[in-house]
Every structure is written in C-alpha cells, then in structure tokens.
C-alpha cells in the first residue's frame, strides 16, 4: 500500500487549469508555443503566460509541468533554450521532455526533468540511463501491470536515484485517448498529410473508418468494424487499486485538447478514486458511480489499455465521442452580486428554464456546475424561463465574472431544435 500518489491533470488553457485545480489535481501539465505534442491546439499558452501559471499553481499548492516533448530540429534549439530559461526564471516546477537536446539543456540549467512517454521507456536499463538527468519518468503506454511492477521493484532494489537524490518516480497514464502506435511514435499523419504527430500536429487518421481491399483480386476483406485503427479510450478507475499496487507514484490524465468540464469531471473522479484507495475505502459501488460520471463526458468508449495484458486492443465503433451528455452555449455572464451570490447572464441563444442543469466556464472561474432553482428575468421578477435576448439572474453560489460562458447540459442525443 502506498502513502502518496500524485494526480497529474492536463491544461490546454486557463479555464482547464482552474478546472483541474477545482477537480483536485496535485499537479498540472501544459504546453507553450509550438514545441509540444498539441502544437495545433489553438488553446495553447504562450511564454508570456508562464508567470501567471506559476502564480496560479503556487497559490493553490499545485505543481506545474511544462511539456517540451516534440522532436527538436536545429532551428528549434534557440526557442527551446528560451523556454527552458523562462521555466527556470518563472518558477514552473519541471519540464516534460523526450528529445536529448531538451533533457540535456534543462538538466544543465538545474530545471527538474521528467521523461515523456514519447521516449518510450520500457525497461529498467533505460530508467537507469535517464536517472542521470531525470527524477520522474513516464512509462510507455504499452506495458502490462506486471511489467510496471517489476520496474518499480527494481528501482527500489537497485536504489536508482535521480539528480534530486531521491528514488526515481514512475508515472503512467491513467485515463484518456490512446494511440494505435507505440505511444506517440506514429507516422500515419506524416505519411498522408505531411503533418507529423511527433511535431504535435497529428491529424488523427486512426480515428477514421477504413476498408481493406485485396489489390490482387479486388476483394474487400471482411472487417467487423470499420474503425480498425481507433483504439477506445483508456480508463483505469475500475482497477486503479491494481495499478497503484504496482508502485507507480504519478497518475496522468491525458487531454490537453479537451474541454474544461471534461478536465474537472475526470480529475475529480480520479481524485476520489486515489483517495479511496489510500484510505482503504475502494468499493465496487463507488467504481460504478465514477464510471457513470466518466461516461457523461467525452469518450470513445472505455477499455483498460494494455495494462491487463490483453492480446488485442479494443477498437472504437464510432468516430466521435460517446459521451451521454453535451453542453450547449446559451449566453454570457454580465454581472455578479457578491452579497447574494447571484449571477446575471445575457441569453444569446436558445432558452433556459427552471430546473435546467447549467455550467459556467471562465479563465478565472474555472467550471461551475449548478441547477437553476429560481430565475429572475429582465426586470419582470421571477419567471419560469428566459429567452434569447433576455437578461436573467440565478444563484451560482460561487463568483462568476463578466464574459464567463453559460452552457446548458442536455442529453447527448437531444436535437438542438428542442433545446
């Protein structure tokens, strides 16, 4: 039984970062500029955001890690060094790296280094090699629980220590999208669209439908599932006790491209799961509850990844999310009355009525989920519903800020016309 486990959550922007903190993350990871595996994401931070990120995380006693884990060309060296220097200067806690140029420079500068899953660590010798530079290492996602356990035991037995003088800590992915290739080392997107996954611009060819044709005789091969390369999403919450028993010290949630409500829900579920494991309170009833909450946010269906030693992967049977609920933008915050805890919103699309479950998202606010109990519309007093163009107010409990976005939560299959 372990004493302490770190929960590491993704942040593509400030909304997600606050959501991760609200969800109970011990640490967050994020990328800046183009040298990270989500270079395409318009959500990425810029270098100028680093002081604000460091401040926000320190304020909440959350560790912050910057991903700098693409392959690096000669022309990237100067930018890479600038980012590492800024990490050091602004007090970001560590850099997640895969390329030796980054690892070496960050180490020299005295910045804590974590080895990215992109380095594909699969054995104890490689861990020993990287221990000269790094204190935390993310294992390749294709290892089984037994293999992970052997590695964790060997670190202890051989007393493999990082630059900090402490034993090397092992991090694994606990939840989120999986690639069909060995961790990120896939060339499909590069091959078809010139867009290298290893430069952070994967076009996700694997998520599409395919058919296989025998070119000799023109026959189409029979396939049970046209999504032959799209792995379901990893979910370990139903065997997190076994995963933590291996001795891993950090659980990472994938998803720097995901929405704030996704980050908050998934982080919260895993926070509760880790805490219940540590307090000997991990039960099948609780697993059921977490699973139903996880099914409500973006997912391609779940499987346990390669941890349980399956012979074959499990493939998704549709292209997009199978989430059970979705959020629809309906307006923005225009005022907040601190004394009464009431927020005022301008409805810009559709309508909203009493009893509706809503979500408010903002860069400082993070994610607030609530249900409307009473609704005041314009200056007409209490009403049953508010329409497009109306100003309405209801209790949010927590402070909202001007321009925070208001969404309503509806079943995923509901058509817009009836919203």
């Amino acid at each position, binding site marked *: 039984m372990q004493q302490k486990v770190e929960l590491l959550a993704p942040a593509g922007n400030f909304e997600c970062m606050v959501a991760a903190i609200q969800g109970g993350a011990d640490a967050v990871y994020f990328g800046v500029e183009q040298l990270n595996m989500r270079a395409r994401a318009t959500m990425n931070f810029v270098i100028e955001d680093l002081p604000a990120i460091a401040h926000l995380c320190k304020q909440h006693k959350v560790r912050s890690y910057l991903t700098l884990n693409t392959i690096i060309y000669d022309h990237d060296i100067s*930018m890479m060094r600038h980012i590492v220097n800024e990490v050091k200067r602004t007090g970001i806690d560590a850099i997640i790296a895969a390329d030796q140029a980054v690892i070496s420079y960050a180490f020299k500068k005295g910045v804590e280094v974590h080895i990215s899953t992109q380095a594909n660590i699969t054995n104890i010798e490689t861990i020993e090699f990287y221990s000269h530079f790094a204190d935390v290492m993310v294992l390749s996602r294709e290892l089984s629980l037994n293999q992970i356990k052997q590695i964790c035991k060997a670190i202890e037995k051989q007393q493999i220590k990082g630059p900090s003088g402490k034993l090397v800590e092992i991090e694994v992915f606990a939840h989120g999208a999986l690639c069909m290739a060995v961790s990120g080392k896939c060339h499909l997107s590069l091959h078809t*669209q*010139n867009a290298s996954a290893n430069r952070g611009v994967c076009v996700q060819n694997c998520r599409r439908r395919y058919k296989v044709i025998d070119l000799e005789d023109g026959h189409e091969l029979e396939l049970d599932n046209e999504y032959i390369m799209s792995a379901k999403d990893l979910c370990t919450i139903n065997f997190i006790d076994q995963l933590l028993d291996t001795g891993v010290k950090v659980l990472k949630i994938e998803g720097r491209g995901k929405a704030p409500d996704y980050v908050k829900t998934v982080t919260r579920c895993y926070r509760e799961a880790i805490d219940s494991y540590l307090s000997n309170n991990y039960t099948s009833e609780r697993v059921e509850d977490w699973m139903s909450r996880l099914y409500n946010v973006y997912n391609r269906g779940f499987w346990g990844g390669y941890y349980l030693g399956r012979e074959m992967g499990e493939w998704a049977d549709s292209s997009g999310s199978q989430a059970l609920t979705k959020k629809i933008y309906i307006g923005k915050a225009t005022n907040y009355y601190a004394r009464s805890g009431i927020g005022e919103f301008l409805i810009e699309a559709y309508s909203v009525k009493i009893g509706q479950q809503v979500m408010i998202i903002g860069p400082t606010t993070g994610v607030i989920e609530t249900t409307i109990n009473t609704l005041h519309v314009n200056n007409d007093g209490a009403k049953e519903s508010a329409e497009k163009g109306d100003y309405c107010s209801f209790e949010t409990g927590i402070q909202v800020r001007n321009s925070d976005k208001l969404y309503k939560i509806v079943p995923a299959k509901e058509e817009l016309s009836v919203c």
Partner: protein
Amino acid sequence: MLIITFKRQKCIGCNYCKEIAPKRWQMSKKDGKSNLIGAINKKGFWTIKLGEEERDENERVANACPVKIIEIR
C-alpha cells in the same frame, strides 16, 4: 502576379517550406518558426508579391504545410 500570404503565428516549424523553396523560406533561429523572405507584416499576416516564376514551387509549399497557413493567389 503571385501573392503569398503567411499566417506566421501558427507556424509549427516543421521545415517543409524551406525544404521545397529554400530561397523564399528560411527557418528563424530565434523562435524556430519559418520566415517568408522579403514579406511585409500586417497584423500577423506576412505578404509578398512575386513574379509567376515562383508560383509552382510555392504552391507545393502551400500544399505541404501541415497547418495550412500559407495562401497563394
């Protein structure tokens, strides 16, 4: 006449443009993004007018760009 427009901010520094048309594209040692040589910056859109002789090469550049931020007119 040929007009190239380049939305530099979104460049990921993949190096393809430089591989195809090294006289017109260069990788910045400063920030790792590409520079469209001779272009003028207006609110993040770098533009240059050129002779038709550079069209073929630069259309290949635009096609190769993985983030599709190069426009040829």
